[in-house]
């Protein structure tokens, strides 16, 4: 991901991720995406569960007066099932890693875009990245956990510190 280079300006720059994008906002946007793209009956249940040792994450950066990151994390199997749900009847019997990276990354992209649109000042979005280990979160990491088909799905929103 391209790191976000612009300096913060007065206004929303001092706000924490949770102040700018509170839990209910994150849940509302995620619920809308799940209903539209994953399936009408697919729901994110606001409960904690266990994340497996091996997870996959997809993330996008938000670049503007507030600089932040939105990270979606779940198990590898759930990421594959989410991609299969996105493709619905067009999913091949065996999804390759590139398909899952594409589909899961696009989910993070749409989630980041939906949250970015709610910020009080105009910002831009970086292209999505996918990997086993997302970049380290800032001190205001804001975690929203859910269960989807019994698998834990985390959304983390955080500020991105300026490079020193």
């Amino acid at each position, binding site marked *: 991901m391209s790191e976000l280079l612009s300096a913060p300006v007065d206004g929303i720059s001092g706000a924490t991720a949770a102040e700018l994008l509170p839990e209910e906002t994150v849940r509302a946007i995620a619920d809308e995406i799940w209903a539209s*793209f994953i399936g009408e009956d697919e729901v994110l249940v606001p409960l904690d569960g266990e994340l497996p040792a091996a997870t996959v994450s997809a993330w996008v950066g938000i670049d503007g007066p507030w600089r932040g990151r939105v990270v979606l994390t779940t198990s590898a199997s759930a990421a594959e099932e989410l991609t299969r749900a*996105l*493709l619905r009847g*067009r999913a091949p019997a065996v999804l390759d890693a590139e398909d899952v990276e594409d589909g899961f990354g696009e989910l993070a*992209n*749409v989630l980041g875009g*939906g949250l970015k649109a709610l910020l009080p000042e105009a910002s831009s979005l970086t292209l999505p990245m996918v990997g086993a280990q997302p970049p380290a979160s800032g001190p205001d990491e804001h975690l929203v956990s859910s269960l989807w088909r019994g698998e834990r799905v985390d959304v983390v929103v955080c500020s991105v510190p300026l490079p020193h």
Partner: protein
Amino acid sequence: MKILVADDSRVMRQIVIRTLRQAGYDSHEVVEAENGREALEKVASEAPDLVLSDWNMPEMTGIECLRALRASGSQVPFGFVTSEGSDDMRSTASAAGALFLIAKPFTSETFEDHLAPVIG
């Protein structure tokens, strides 16, 4: 009728194409492009009746593609299908000559509402 769908995500292109079918545009030919530069080339080679483009793409963004099309004299109907639906982006899109901006996530009804005035 031919519709050009430009998005760097193959999965999202599939979702857009599926939504077009659900919105009733199942008899339209669809061609795909992976970024704005490829979309620009395919407008010339495929002569689509409508372009549906993502905004944020590598190589060339959707807005850069639209501006290049208009600068070259092309008046192909152009709409955005993007995850970034802020007021600022809607104004930028409109000023560049886009007919509409559909924000992701979308429904087939949203597609019908925006596409019907353009391609019936």
